[in-house]
């Protein structure tokens, strides 16, 4: 069980067949103060690459695309009242949604933490 990352700066944590999804600490830093997160509805069927959520900061609104296919089984309703949790704790309490994944091989092409770190360093240069 370990974090995986996409090039769009989403993280996925797979536990059994349930994937928790959020945005990386790097992403929240780039966005600035998050003012709103639009999360999906429990029961939504999401395909890999579909829009999963929208993060709105004082600077921009960005779509979050799902790195996996499956059914949304839980969403982080606390974000509605406290969107800054994304800034304060992007990798844990700032999660967006949990998806029951149809195919765990969706995660195969994602980066592990070390690779992602190198990837982000490359972006900052």
């Amino acid at each position: 069980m370990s974090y995986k990352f996409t090039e769009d700066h989403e993280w996925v944590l797979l536990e059994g067949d349930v994937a928790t999804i959020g945005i990386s600490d790097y992403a929240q830093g780039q966005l600035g103060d998050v003012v709103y997160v639009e999360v999906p509805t429990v029961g939504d069927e999401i395909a890999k690459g579909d829009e999963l959520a929208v993060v709105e900061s004082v600077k921009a609104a960005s779509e979050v695309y799902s790195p996996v296919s499956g059914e949304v089984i839980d969403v982080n309703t606390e974000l509605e009242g406290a969107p800054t949790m994304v800034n304060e704790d992007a990798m844990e309490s700032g999660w967006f949604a949990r998806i029951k994944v149809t195919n765990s091989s969706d995660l195969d092409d994602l980066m592990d933490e070390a690779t992602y770190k190198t990837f982000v360093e490359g972006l900052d240069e």
Partner: protein
Amino acid sequence: MRYMPHTAAEREEMLTKIGVGSIDDLFTDIPEESRLEGLLDLPLHESEMVVEKNFRKLAAKNLSPYSVPCFLGAGAYQHHVPSVADHIIQRSEFLTAYTPYQPEISQGTLQALFEFQTQVALITGMEVANASMYDGATSCAEAVLMACRVTRRKKAVISGNLHPHYRDVTHTTLQFTEFETIDLPPAVSGAERVDDHITSEIACVVAQNPDFFGRLHDLSALAEECHAAGTLLVVVVNEVVSLGAITSPGEMGADIVAGEGQSIGVPLSFGGPYVGLLATRQKFVRQMPGRLCGQTVDQDGKRGFVLTLSTREQHIRREKATSNICTNAGLCSLAFTIHMSLLGESGLTKLASLNHSQAVTLAEKLEAIDGVDLLNDSFFNEFTLRLPMNAASAVEKLGEKGILGGVPVSRLIPDDPEMANLLLVAATETCSASDMDDFVATLKEVL
């Protein structure tokens, strides 16, 4: 000499680049019959004096509603706008339709918009209103799009007693989207079973109050039916003065109110520019189209105004914006705000009750004419008559005698024999007793 910024070679290069044969090919979306073939039959040049004289001659052919007895309505109403409104909107600080690009340095404009939003929210009985839309019809179309976004459903039920132009503009707006409408036929009798069409697939029901024929409705039961199915109720108001007398859409359970604000502050002006109103519940605010002005405090704790929730808008959100509306009806909304401020709450109530009593007086006089039937069992300041002759011909003849005697229903609902003899008549505070007497006497002659 015309200044042509591009050479023929440059134009050719651009056309080749985008793969179009000629400039005319860029206009193929415009129907053939609407395109101009060749030049208009006009003199190549004429002196300013001659042109001015010609235009004055043409203008004199119009029958101005401000100089003859006028009973026109059907979505645009003649009201008295205090001259102070015109004076204030002509101050140079306000002379632009645009919300400023550096909004926060224009505190005056923002405050005016904020007051406008507050007034619209108060009269419609809603929690939040935006800084205006283009007009009532575009506002109606935007309300349908918004309801589809909120509910994630794709169909809207349109009452047959919605103003036909509003329905048409909604169709135009929806035609390149995945959304569609179920259109009910006009119901002159007022008996319309909208609720039969509400299912869990319907994003919203669009109903107008007072409706196109002038009838008033208690929409509370419809609102409950909608909500039970997870459907939103969009209420359209195109005579905003009525809100001074009747229960607000918000109190009846509306989820979105789309309105035309022309009656307050804005002259008839041949149909525009007008000012669209859009109000909703706080919980839907992020799906709202258009600009929104908010009140806040600056670093010293002083009251100030900002444009807020801009991330919904196209300059930030691009193709995923809640709307492609680029600007608003800023100047007309300012006129609305000034006029409404002058009226105040009690003034609006008085104006509304005056409108209603004028209409009651006129309706009684007209109904007393042999062969004329009043079709409404309720109305605000406009009602529908059935004449013993074709209503369009009657209006034509009244016009020849210097009276703007209402709008024939067939003008908006053509090719329907049931509508041919129906006439929409409006009476506002601007009609004098002698205007009414002239109308009644002349109509008797015409029939």
